[in-house]
C-alpha cells in the first residue's frame, strides 16, 4: 500500500501532518507521539523578531470548538533556525515552517533566513491569522495582497511554498486562484474563523484580545467545503486540508473532498495521539476498501457529483 504524497514538492511518507500552532515545535509532544511516524511536522508560526503574543485569557472553549488568540507568540526566526531546527532535523521528518509577518519585507526576510536550513522541507505562509492586527488576515482577505506575499516569498526561497488561506472571505476560489497564479506550490486551508465569546457574568469578552480564531470539530463542515470548492476549481494544485480533524474518518472527509494531505490541529489537545490514530486509520480504511494508492482517494467524492442546481 502506498500512502506517500507529494505536497507541492514536499514528499511525505503519509498524508498526515500537524496544524501550525497546535503542536508547538513537535518536541513538546515527543513523549506521546513517535514523531518519526508523521508525514511531516508543521511548526508554530514564526516571525522575524520574537513575539510575546497576546494578553491572557488566550483561549475559550465553545461548543465542539475553541477560540484562540495566542497572537503569534514565538521565539523569532533566528532561534528557530539556530536552536530548534537542529533538533528537529535529527528526526529525519520533513519540517514545514509556518511563517508570518507585518509587511511583505518581513515575510521575505523570514523566508530567506530559512532557505537552506537543514531539515526545513517547506514553508507555509500564514496570510490568514485572525489574531494579529497587521499582516495576517489583512493579506489574506484580498487576492492582490495575497499574491504579492506569495511572490515575495517565492522570489527568495527555493523551498516549496504552501499558502494558508483564510475562510473569512466571500470568494475563497478567487483567493486560491490568485496565490496559485503567483506561484504557490500548494494551498493549505483552513485557518480559523473569527469569533467572539462573551462572559455573561462579567459582561465582557472572555478573551483578552476580544476576538479569537475558532477551531475544532465545530468548523469541520466549513473546512471540508473550502477544500471541495478549491479542488473543484483548481484540481491541479495540491491542498493541505485541516479544520476539526480528530479521527481518520474526519481526515478522509478532507481527502475525499480533494485534499492531498491533512493536518491535525485542535485534535492534538484532546487526543495527543490523534495524528498517529489518523495515520493508522487511513491505512486501515484503504485496506478494508481495497485502495492501494492514497492518490485514488483524493477528490473521489467529487466524481460524478453535480449540484442539483448547477
Amino acid at each position, binding site marked *: 500500500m502506498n500512502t506517500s504524497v507529494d505536497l507541492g514538492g514536499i514528499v511525505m511518507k503519509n498524508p498526515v501532518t500537524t496544524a501550525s500552532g497546535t503542536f*508547538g515545535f513537535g518536541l513538546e*509532544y515527543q513523549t506521546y507521539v513517535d514523531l518519526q511516524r508523521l508525514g511531516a511536522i508543521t511548526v*508554530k508560526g514564526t516571525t522575524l523578531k520574537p513575539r510575546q503574543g497576546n494578553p*491572557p485569557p*488566550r*483561549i475559550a472553549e465553545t*461548543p465542539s470548538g475553541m477560540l484562540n488568540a495566542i497572537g503569534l507568540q514565538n521565539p523569532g526566526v533566528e532561534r528557530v533556525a539556530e536552536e530548534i531546527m537542529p533538533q528537529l532535523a535529527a528526526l529525519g521528518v520533513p519540517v514545514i515552517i509556518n511563517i508570518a509577518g507585518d509587511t511583505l519585507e518581513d515575510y521575505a526576510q523570514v523566508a530567506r533566513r530559512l532557505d537552506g536550513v537543514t531539515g526545513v522541507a517547506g514553508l507555509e505562509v500564514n496570510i490568514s491569522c485572525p489574531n494579529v492586527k497587521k499582516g495576517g488576515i489583512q493579506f489574506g482577505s484580498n487576492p492582490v495582497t495575497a499574491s504579492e506575499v506569495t511572490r515575495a516569498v517565492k522570489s527568495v526561497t527555493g523551498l516549496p511554498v504552501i499558502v494558508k488561506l483564510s475562510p473569512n472571505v466571500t470568494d475563497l476560489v478567487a483567493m486560491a486562484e490568485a496565490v496559485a497564479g503567483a506561484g504557490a506550490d500548494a494551498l493549505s486551508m483552513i485557518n480559523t474563523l473569527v469569533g467572539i465569546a462573551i462572559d455573561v457574568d462579567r459582561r465582557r469578552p472572555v478573551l483578552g484580545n476580544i476576538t479569537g480564531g475558532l477551531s475544532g*470539530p465545530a468548523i469541520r463542515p466549513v473546512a471540508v467545503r473550502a477544500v471541495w470548492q478549491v479542488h473543484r476549481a483548481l484540481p491541479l494544485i495540491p491542498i493541505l486540508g485541516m479544520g476539526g480533524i480528530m479521527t481518520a474518518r474526519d481526515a478522509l472527509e478532507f481527502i475525499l473532498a480533494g485534499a492531498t494531505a491533512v493536518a491535525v490541529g485542535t485534535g492534538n489537545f*484532546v487526543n495527543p495521539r490523534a495524528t498517529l490514530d489518523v495515520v493508522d486509520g487511513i491505512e486501515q480504511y484503504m485496506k478494508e476498501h481495497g485502495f492501494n494508492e492514497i492518490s485514488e482517494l483524493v477528490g473521489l467524492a467529487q466524481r460524478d457529483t453535480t449540484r442539483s442546481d448547477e
Partner: protein
Amino acid sequence: MSQLMMAEITGCQETGPGVWVTELLAPSLAQAAVPGQFIHIRCGEDSDPLLRRPISIHAVCRQSGLVKIMFQVVGKGTAWLAGRRDGWLDIMGPLGRGFTMLTAEKTGTAAVPRLVVGGGIGAAPLYFLLQELAGTGYAEHVKVLLGARNAEQLLIHNAVKLLGFSVSVATDDGSAGYQGPVTDLLAEELQCKPGYVYACGPAPMLKTLCGMLHNAGVPGEVSVEERMACGVGACLSCVCRVKDAGGLETFRHACVDGPVFAAGEVVW
C-alpha cells in the same frame, strides 16, 4: 514522565457540597507524581465538552498505585466527571512543575518552618503536599491555614489533622474558626517569620498573599489556574504574567513552567 493512559476509576464520592473525590488506579502516575502537579482529563467521548480539564493531584498512595483527585463541579466537564462512578478515565499526567520540596541540601536545614495556605477548592493539591511533608519527619515545623466560605465547605482539614499537622481555619461567615479571610490568619503567622509559604486558592486570595509575602520578605510558592488546551507547552494558551529578577515582565506557561510559581514572580 508524563503518560497518556486509561486509568480505572476505583471510587467516586461527594465529600462536600458539589465537591467530589475520584480515586484512580494509576501506578505509573502514583510513582512519578510530585505535589502541585496535575492530570489532564478528557471529559466524555464526543466533542462537547471538547478540551481536557486540568485537575490537580489530591492524594497519592505509591504502594497501592492509587491516585485521588478532588474537584468542584462548576461546569459541564466537572459535571460529567462527577457522574463517573466506575469505568475508565482518559488522562495525561503527571503534568507541570510542582511545589519545591525543601530538602536539607537545598536549605542548609530542612527544618525551616513552613506555612501551607489553602482557600476553597485550592486545598485539593495541598493535601498531597502535606502527605509528602508528613513523610519528611518535619511535620512539627509545618502549620496549615485553610479558608472556606463556611464550615460545610471546608475541605481536607480533618484529613490534615490526621496526618498530624496543626490546622487553623477561617470562614467567611464564622461558622468554623476565625471569621474572615484566611489571609488574616496569614498576617498573624507572618509575624513569626515562617521560612517558606506554599499556597493555592482563588486568584484574589493569592494576589493578597503574594503582596503580604513580598512585604514580609518571606519566600514561597503559589499554584495558579490558567485556561489550558494542550497541557504540554505546545499551544501557548496558558500564559501567566511573571517578572524576572530584573523586573522585566514576560509570559510563562502554567502547564510546563507552572502551575506552581515563586510567589514573587507572578504579576497579578
